[in-house]
C-alpha cells in the first residue's frame, strides 16, 4: 500500500523538459507535424500547377452517379443519412463533402433529395450546405428545407424514424455516410426492403461487415475521407489524399522494420522504443 502512495506522490517529470509523460506523446506529435507539412506541401504544389502523384480509384465513388442516375430514371427520391456524434467530428466533415456533392447532383437532375440526421447542430449546417448546392446547380427554388430533417437525437428513435421515412418515401438510392453504431443494419435493411441501391461509407470498423453484407457498395474506413476529397474533384483537396498515402507507406515501412527488428533482437527493439516515446 505504501508503495502505491509513494508512487502517487512522486512528481511527474516532463519528457525532454516540455512534453507530457504519456506513451506515444512525442511520436504522435511528430506524425501530426509531418502530416500537416505534407498536406501543405502537396496542396501548394497543386496550386502552382506542379505534378502531384495520382490518387487511386475508389470503386464506391463510381456508384454514386449510378445510384443518383437510377433514382432520376425511376422518378424516386435519393436519401442520405448519418449518425454524426458531434458537430466537430471528423466523419461529419467528410459527410458534408458527400452531402454537397450528392445534393448538387440531385439538383442538376431534378431529383428529390432527402437528408436526415441525428444532431440538431449538424442539421443547421446540413441545411446551409444543401441550400448552397441547389444554388450552385442554378436551381435555388427547388430547395425544400423540409427535406433536410433532424429526426431525433436518440440512437434508436432516430434509426426507427429514418427506417419509417425510407418505408414511406421509398427512395431509389440511399447513401449511408459517416460514423454508425448498432443501427447500421436497421438502416441498410430498411433501404433493402424498398429496393433502394445502397452505398455506404463508414469509418466505424465494427459496422463495416454489416454494410458489406447489406449494401451494394461499401467504402471502407479511410475511403470515407479519401472519397470526400475525391468527390470534390478539386486537385487542391486531392493533395491531402496524396499526403495521406505517403504517411501510410511510411508507417507500413516502420511496422515492417519493427517486425524485423523484433524478430532479430527482441530485447533491443529501438523502433518500438521510438514509437512509445
Amino acid at each position, binding site marked *: 500500500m505504501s508503495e502505491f502512495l509513494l508512487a502517487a506522490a512522486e512528481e511527474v517529470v516532463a519528457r525532454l523538459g516540455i512534453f507530457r509523460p504519456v506513451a506515444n506523446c512525442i511520436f504522435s506529435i511528430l506524425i501530426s507535424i509531418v502530416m500537416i507539412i505534407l498536406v501543405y506541401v502537396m496542396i501548394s504544389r497543386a496550386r502552382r500547377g506542379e505534378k502531384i502523384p495520382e490518387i487511386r480509384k475508389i470503386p464506391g465513388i463510381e456508384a454514386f452517379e449510378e445510384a443518383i442516375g437510377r433514382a432520376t430514371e425511376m422518378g424516386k427520391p435519393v436519401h442520405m443519412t448519418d449518425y454524426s456524434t458531434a458537430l466537430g467530428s471528423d466523419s461529419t466533415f467528410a459527410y458534408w463533402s458527400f452531402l454537397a456533392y450528392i445534393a448538387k447532383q440531385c439538383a442538376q437532375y431534378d431529383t428529390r433529395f432527402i437528408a436526415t440526421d441525428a444532431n440538431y447542430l449538424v442539421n443547421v449546417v446540413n441545411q*446551409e*450546405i444543401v441550400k448552397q448546392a441547389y444554388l450552385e446547380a442554378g436551381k435555388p427554388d427547388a430547395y425544400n428545407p423540409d427535406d433536410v430533417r433532424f429526426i431525433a437525437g436518440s440512437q434508436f428513435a432516430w434509426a426507427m424514424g429514418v427506417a419509417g421515412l425510407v418505408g414511406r418515401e421509398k427512395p431509389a438510392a440511399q447513401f449511408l455516410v459517416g460514423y454508425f453504431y448498432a443501427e447500421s443494419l*436497421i438502416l441498410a435493411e430498411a433501404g433493402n426492403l424498398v429496393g433502394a441501391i445502397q452505398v455506404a461509407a463508414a469509418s466505424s*470498423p465494427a459496422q463495416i461487415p454489416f454494410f458489406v453484407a447489406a449494401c451494394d457498395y461499401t467504402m471502407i*474506413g479511410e475511403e470515407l*475521407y479519401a472519397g470526400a476529397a475525391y468527390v470534390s474533384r478539386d486537385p487542391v483537396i486531392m493533395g491531402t489524399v496524396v499526403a495521406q498515402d505517403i504517411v501510410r507507406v511510411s508507417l507500413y515501412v516502420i511496422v515492417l522494420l519493427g517486425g524485423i527488428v523484433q524478430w532479430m533482437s527482441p530485447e533491443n527493439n529501438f523502433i518500438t522504443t521510438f514509437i512509445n516515446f
Partner: protein
Amino acid sequence: MRKEVPFIISLVFAAVRFALEAFHGAYEYTMASGDKLLNALSWAMTFMAMAAIFLGALNLFRIHGNNIRRKRPHWQFSVYLLALLAYQSIMGLVQSHTGTIYLWPYNAVYLPLDATMFSMLAFYIASAAYRAFRIRNVDAAVMLLAAFIVMMGNVPIGEVIWGPDSFLGGFQGVKEWILRVPNAAGNRAITLGIFLGVMATQSRILLGIERRHLGQD
C-alpha cells in the same frame, strides 16, 4: 469576414487544445480558481451546448406553434411534442432529474421502446446474413467458411463436434486463430487508414482549406 472570423477562432482554439494535450506545462496549468485550464475549456463547451439547447427549445416552440396555429398536416403530433416538452421541463424544475414523476415517461415509455427497437436487430441480422452468405464467388465462400467456424467456436454444439482437445484445438482453436491473426491484421489496417484519414481531414480544417461547414460565400 463571415468565413475568416470563424476560421481564426477555430485555428486559435485548435492550437490551444493541441498545446494542452501535448505540453506538460500547459496540461498541468492551473488557474487562480484552482481549476485546470483543460477542464475549464470543457466546461465552456458544455455551456455553449446548453445555450444551443435553449435556442433549440425556443425554435421548437416557434415551429410547432405555427404548425398548430395553421393546422398543418399532422399538427396533432406537434401538440403531443410540445405537451411532452412542457411536462418534462416543468417536472425537471419541480422534482429535479431524480424525481419519480419526472423519470416515469423515460423509464416506462422511452426505455421499453428503445429496447424493442434494438431487439429488432436480431431479425435484420438474420435477413442480412442470408443474403451475405449466399455463395456467389470465392470471397463470399471464404467469408461463409470463416463465419461458420467462428459461430461453431462460440456454441456448445461446436465443442461436441470438434472439441478443444482435438486437432488444431477444435472449432474454438481455429476460431481464436481467425480472430487473432487474419481478422486482427485486417482490422488494424482499417484502423490505421481511418486514423490517417482523420489526420488529413483535421489538417485540412486547421490549414483553412476545408471551409464547407462555414456556409456560403
